[in-house]
């Protein structure tokens, strides 16, 4: 992709200007509604380390292996939306012509659902342009850190038996069945699934969330990922369990999981990169 610093800078600067005016407008709207604006409701997570089951499919000695658990570090404060992006947030982007209308007919104070990875990225770009800040999807690691005690990762089939690949499939199917989760298709008002210990709302409810992490096939040796081949046409989706969806899928029910429980809905929340604007300038070598 070509990168034109002058043009890009111009866009960001313009966006920053627009952003000032716009956030004023948003404030007006929210004061009319008497509620806070989701865009500005962020949870700031303090840096820390945690053990994280990696996303993707793993091979050890040429056979399927459980996801390796790797120590991960979030080394700077992480600002993540307290709530998922709501339908009314998303509709503003649609009104601006920067986002495609979502498949969900729901409006207002419910999570935006019926949105693909591509839609989520379009929204992040639009919000960044409007605010002059850097908004983006969380990585799988960031999402897991924010999800805290509600993080589940993949439904595991365990170690593959070289002599019997079916054992793992059956174990995984039984593990998933044992969770006993029933379909729960109707998105609910934001906050309906409560807060986790970190004050982040609606984690592992009935809206799964896009992340910026690509699906990968990886080989494991001595507990570490030795080599990995990514397919960025498919991204990690997080929620009640972890799954993987093609970027253009808006309805998880028919988008993946040949066997097993599919996501009820697809939505997203964003993180804000600290000093996004200054960072962008720095990256361009303009400061």
């Amino acid at each position, binding site marked *: 992709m070509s990168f034109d610093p002058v043009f890009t800078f111009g866009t960001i600067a313009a966006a920053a200007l627009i952003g000032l005016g716009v956030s004023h407008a948003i404030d007006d709207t929210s004061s009319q509604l008497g509620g806070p604006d989701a865009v500005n409701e962020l949870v700031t997570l303090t840096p820390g380390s945690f053990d994280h089951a990696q996303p993707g499919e793993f091979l050890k000695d040429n056979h399927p292996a459980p996801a390796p658990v790797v120590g991960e570090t979030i080394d700077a404060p992480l600002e993540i939306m307290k709530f998922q992006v709501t339908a009314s947030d998303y509709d503003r982007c649609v009104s601006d012509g920067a986002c495609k209308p979502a498949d969900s007919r729901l409006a207002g104070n419910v999570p935006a659902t019926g949105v693909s990875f591509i839609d989520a990225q379009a929204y992040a770009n639009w919000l960044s342009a409007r605010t002059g800040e850097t908004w983006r999807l969380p990585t799988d690691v960031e999402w897991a850190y924010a999800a805290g005690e509600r993080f589940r990762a993949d439904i595991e089939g365990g170690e593959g038996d070289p002599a019997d690949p079916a054992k793992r499939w*059956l174990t995984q199917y039984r593990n998933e069945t044992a969770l006993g989760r029933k379909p729960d298709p109707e998105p609910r008002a934001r906050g309906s699934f409560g807060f986790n210990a970190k004050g982040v709302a609606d984690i592992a409810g009935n809206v799964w969330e896009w992340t910026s992490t690509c699906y990968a096939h990886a080989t494991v040796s001595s507990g570490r990922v030795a080599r990995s081949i990514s397919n960025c046409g498919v991204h990690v989706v997080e929620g009640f369990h972890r799954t993987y969806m093609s970027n253009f899928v808006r309805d998880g029910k028919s988008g993946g999981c040949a066997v097993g429980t599919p996501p009820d809905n697809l939505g997203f929340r964003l993180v804000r990169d600290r000093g996004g604007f200054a960072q962008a300038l720095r990256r361009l070598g303009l400061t």
Partner: protein
Amino acid sequence: MLTRREALLSSVLTAAAIATIGSAPAMAAAKDVAGLPREKVTLVAPPFVHAHDQVAKGGPRVVEFTMTIEEKPMVIDADGTQLNAMTYNGSIPGPLMVVHEGDYLELTLVNPDTNTLAHNIDFHAATGALGGGGLTLVNPGEQVTLRFKATRPGTFVYHCAPGGAMIPWHVVSGMSGAVMVLPRDGLKDEKGKPVRYDRIYYIGENDFYIPRDEQGKFKKYDSAGDNYDDTVKVMRGLIPTHVVFNGTAGSLTGENAMKAKVGETILIVHSQANRDTRPHLIGGHGDFVWEGGKFANPPAKDMETWFIRGGSAGAALYTFRQPGIYAYVNHNLIEAVELGATAHFMVDGSWDDDLMMQVEAPKVIAS
């Protein structure tokens, strides 16, 4: 143009007229039948089948069944879409009834006064009176008993057929099931050698036509009668909104997945009362398949996919050779994945590397 009420009423009258014309009591055979042993069978909900002998013990008998019709709302997919269902014995499909060739199947059909519509039953296995439909029309608060002789071995659909426009509407509201008439000496392969099954599963496939509102969302109706006009409009498009096994998308998956073991032989009876379908067991086959469902014909062998004509039931016999999760689908894959026609088998046992193995796991393409 008839109003809905008039349409409902006129169909009932038509059916009643048929019933009157056809209701010559079967006295001639009654004396012979009176001396036969009787067996009362309690039906079980699909995909399971009541206990039965594969090879008949002794001579013909009268096998008694009772089914109670239940009109009730049922959820047919994960989105909570509601069908104003009409059911035989509370399930979609209605239960599978098993008898042997030469037996008499005697059904008592109960239409409780909590229902709102007249119903009957047309047995494709039966001869005469519109398959019994002309002799079994019952209004809410009535019951009727029909007996027919099982003269032809095979799997056969039964369905509600209360006259005119009521017929397809009742069928696509859930009123169908199947009868299996086994040869007295059991099933045989194409050379006449006996074959047996360790387990039997009955899969009824249904096509549903749920009306949508202006926003494209499936509508809910208080009662079956309220949906009639809208539903018929969708039916006339001939494109179902749902194609499902066992009444609900996903009903034979997860904890309800069908079970089997490597080395076990299963018989899958598959019925579709209204529309063609093409079952396929992903990763398996049909060892012996009675596509048309009639056991006097030799079974086809080694089938990959088999065709079930709308308005018929077929049977497929298969011995599992490999463990794992199998998907059993209508191999119009749009109907399987998007409309709901997918079931699962969980098969335990030992893997056979001779039949299949991954020689090399996915890795970087060798340059």
